[in-house]
């Protein structure tokens, strides 16, 4: 799905803090199983601090305004995370912990999942959150109805999903055709937040305006073009195990304002008109760290990568692909263009925040012009033309890079231009094909013969993304999410094996095998990581980014110190 934004900076200065929280949350997760008592206790001990933390409205300056308050786009995940709960939650290091489901069991053939649903939870429209409600949601995601279909869940589950049903008021059963281990990961992503079936019946339009979940905040009003007003859900009783406290959120609400313009967004933070703002401009990075609390999450799934069109020359030849990877100092390009703030990601297959990430692959294909030239000679691109561009039977070594200029901010664009320059030395004639969002969605420059390299990415918790990126075109079903057009059935087998393996170690091994294979064959070359950054005024504490998912800001635990 299109990104929040491509941007990034280094400084996990709140790493320790996160550690603490995770520890806490996991502990809590275990404790939750015998619910009621502990819950009460939890509430009791939270009680004292609460009164001090209560109150205030968070003025949050966000980036883009989505067309609808839920859906497949990251911009929509951010919002949905505030007002809906998922069936399960996922911790930083990939553990699945309880949320709406207090516990679950998986049949031996790994095809039947049975979830125990937390009692006494209500959607904010009063509809009870029970097994049936959740089953309706899930079935809707995989239906063909444009109103209910879930563009994130569908590509993951279509092949394996069979049905979801309520076997008891609080017992949900999901049946699969084939085992699919990442199911829980998928269920933990915000786009799979559970919405009130009663509300859903109102139709897409109404739900886009005022979706109803069971989350810590309630969508009060969406002033299009301006902001979304959330107010606290006073009866909130279903926080995930990853949360830091129980009961309703501390703040009275969120004023979720849309400032597409970077200058205004960050400016409003500078002038104190916002309490927290999304996506810190890299020019402002140092400044931001000196003034504000800065949160940053490097998203899982694929990094921002150069997908090389492998179905036709020149990149149908792995040697040329590797040569291209070697030919440019991508590391330098990224680090300079992003003012040294964005870590380079050499691993084209998986982003470093995914559990299955292999560190040493992060530095694969370092800048080596000599190697690049050797590989190209080897591949038969021996002649040169006047401009020093390599030729093979008269054809110049042309590389057109298509990308959406709206995804790739100027920094990234400059990085590409650096690569363009350096690759030329190796004899690549690199042309940039920036495409604005409008044309991009219209598929401009993305036709089968329009590009040799496409710059795309997909944010996800981890390696389960492989299914989406690398599923080959089987029985005429074109995989539209594979811009590399890279077909490798053995790779596909490995991926499917991994998906069906429920032994953590084995699965990771399988995924890493696939990962190695990918890096080695270079159908996609690493470029940059994607990240979510958030800056907050110092008096606003305990916002956290949901690293279990794709780093959505979570305001449930946030509170102001000192009355404002």
């Amino acid at each position: 799905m299109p990104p929040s934004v491509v941007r990034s900076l280094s400084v996990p200065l709140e790493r320790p803090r996160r550690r603490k929280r995770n520890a806490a949350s996991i502990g809590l997760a275990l404790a939750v199983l015998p619910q009621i008592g502990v819950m009460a206790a939890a509430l009791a001990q939270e009680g004292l601090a609460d009164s001090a933390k209560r109150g205030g409205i968070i003025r949050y300056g966000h980036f883009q305004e989505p067309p609808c308050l839920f859906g497949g786009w990251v911009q929509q995940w951010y919002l949905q995370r505030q007002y809906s709960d998922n069936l399960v939650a996922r911790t930083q290091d990939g553990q699945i912990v309880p949320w709406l489901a207090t516990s679950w069991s998986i049949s031996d053939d790994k095809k039947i999942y049975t979830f125990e649903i937390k009692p006494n939870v209500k959607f904010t429209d009063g509809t009870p959150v029970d097994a049936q409600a959740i089953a309706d949601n899930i079935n809707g995601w995989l239906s063909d109805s444009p109103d209910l279909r879930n563009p994130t869940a569908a590509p993951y589950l279509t092949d394996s999903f069979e049905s979801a049903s309520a076997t008891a008021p609080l017992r949900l059963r999901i049946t699969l055709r084939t085992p699919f281990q990442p199911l829980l990961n998928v269920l933990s992503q915000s786009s799979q937040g559970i919405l009130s079936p009663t509300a859903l019946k109102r139709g897409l339009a109404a739900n886009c305006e005022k979706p109803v979940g069971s989350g810590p905040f309630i969508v009060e009003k969406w002033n299009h073009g301006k902001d979304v007003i959330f107010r606290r859900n006073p009866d909130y009783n279903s926080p995930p195990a990853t949360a830091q406290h129980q009961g309703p959120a501390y703040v009275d609400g969120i004023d979720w304002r849309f400032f597409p313009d970077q200058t205004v967004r960050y400016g409003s933070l500078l002038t104190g008109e916002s309490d927290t703002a999304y996506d810190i401009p890299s020019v402002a990075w140092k400044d931001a760290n000196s003034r504000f609390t800065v949160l940053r999450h490097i998203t899982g799934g694929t990094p921002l990568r150069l997908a090389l069109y492998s179905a036709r020359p020149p990149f149908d030849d792995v040697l040329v692909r590797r040569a291209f990877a070697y030919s440019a100092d991508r590391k330098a390009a990224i680090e300079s263009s992003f003012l040294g703030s964005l870590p380079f990601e050499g691993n084209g297959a998986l982003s470093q925040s995914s559990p299955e990430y292999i560190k040493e692959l992060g530095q694969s294909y370092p800048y080596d012009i000599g190697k690049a030239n050797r590989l190209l000679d080897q591949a038969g691109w021996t002649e040169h033309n006047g401009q020093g561009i390599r030729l093979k039977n008269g054809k110049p070594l042309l590389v057109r890079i298509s990308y959406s200029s709206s995804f790739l901010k100027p920094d990234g664009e400059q990085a590409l231009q650096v690569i363009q320059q350096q690759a030329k030395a190796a004899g690549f004639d690199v042309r940039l094909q920036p495409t604005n969002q409008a044309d991009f969605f219209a598929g401009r420059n993305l036709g089968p013969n329009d590009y040799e390299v496409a710059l795309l990415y997909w944010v996800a918790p981890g390696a389960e993304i492989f299914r989406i990126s690398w599923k080959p075109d089987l029985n005429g079903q074109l995989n539209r999410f594979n811009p590399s057009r890279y077909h490798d059935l053995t790779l596909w087998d490995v991926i499917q094996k991994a998906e069906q393996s429920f032994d953590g170690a084995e699965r990771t091994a399988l995924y890493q095998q696939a990962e190695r294979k990918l890096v080695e064959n270079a159908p996609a070359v690493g470029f940059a990581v994607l990240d979510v950054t958030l800056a907050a005024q110092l008096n606003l504490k305990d916002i956290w980014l949901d690293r279990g998912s794709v780093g959505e800001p979570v305001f449930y635990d946030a509170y102001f110190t000192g009355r404002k």
Partner: protein
Amino acid sequence: MSSSEVLGGAGAFPHLLRTLARVRTVPLRVYAAVTIVGFFLAAAIAPKWLETHDPLAIDLTASLQAPSIAHWLGTDQSGRDLYSRIVEGAGQSLSIGLGATALSLSLALILGVTAGLVGGVVDTVLSRLFDVLFALPTLFLALLFVTVFGTTVLTEIIAVGLGTAPGYARMIRGQVLAVKGAGYVEAAKALGHPYLRIVRRHILPNAMNPLTAMMTLGVGQAIIWASGLAFLGLGVAPPAPEWGALLNAGRNYVIYAWWLEIMPGLAVVVFALSVTVLGRYLGERLEGKS
């Protein structure tokens, strides 16, 4: 009569040069304008002459430098010389401006003259058409085109051209009507000249008199519109650093690197200003004021 005994109240298009040649009467600002326009035209035609650096050459050691001797207008994030980039961008920006103006004027000319000369139903219909197009804000029209056909130089030219045409068309139509009713047209008729000859020798030349002025004025506006599109991120995309694109990119740095936004903007303003000064001057000349 003394009032009308103005000397140098000259006028006809072919005599434009002669008129301009009366150097002593040309005000200083016009020289300045000519120089600036000349500069930008040169930049458009042969940017390499004027560039101090390679506009695409990335020099990471010189990232985000303020204007200095080395870099007259400063550098951008990857150390590219802004001055050279503006020079480089002149080509695309001007071609959009000129193209759009040429298009809108030729459209306006054809329609306006037809409406004015033929009159009757044709006039009514065409005038309505002008009204309709005139009723649509230029930028909106441009946006519609971009939405539908995507952004290419051509789309922008068409969009901006179409957007600005109706205004001109109305003007020209009025001009034609005025000339049609002029005494000298009747005088020519009284001399027994055929209508077409009168049209060719009297009406068209006089109706087109203001065009040169409108042309120059138009180019400035067209460039402003085009860069407006680019400013919304809907312009023709890089690599060529079109001015609007520079403006759009500069916006993100404006707090910390003002020059990236100010300088390209100044380029647009200075150019538009010069052509306006030039246009107004020509206009006055051609209308015989002085």
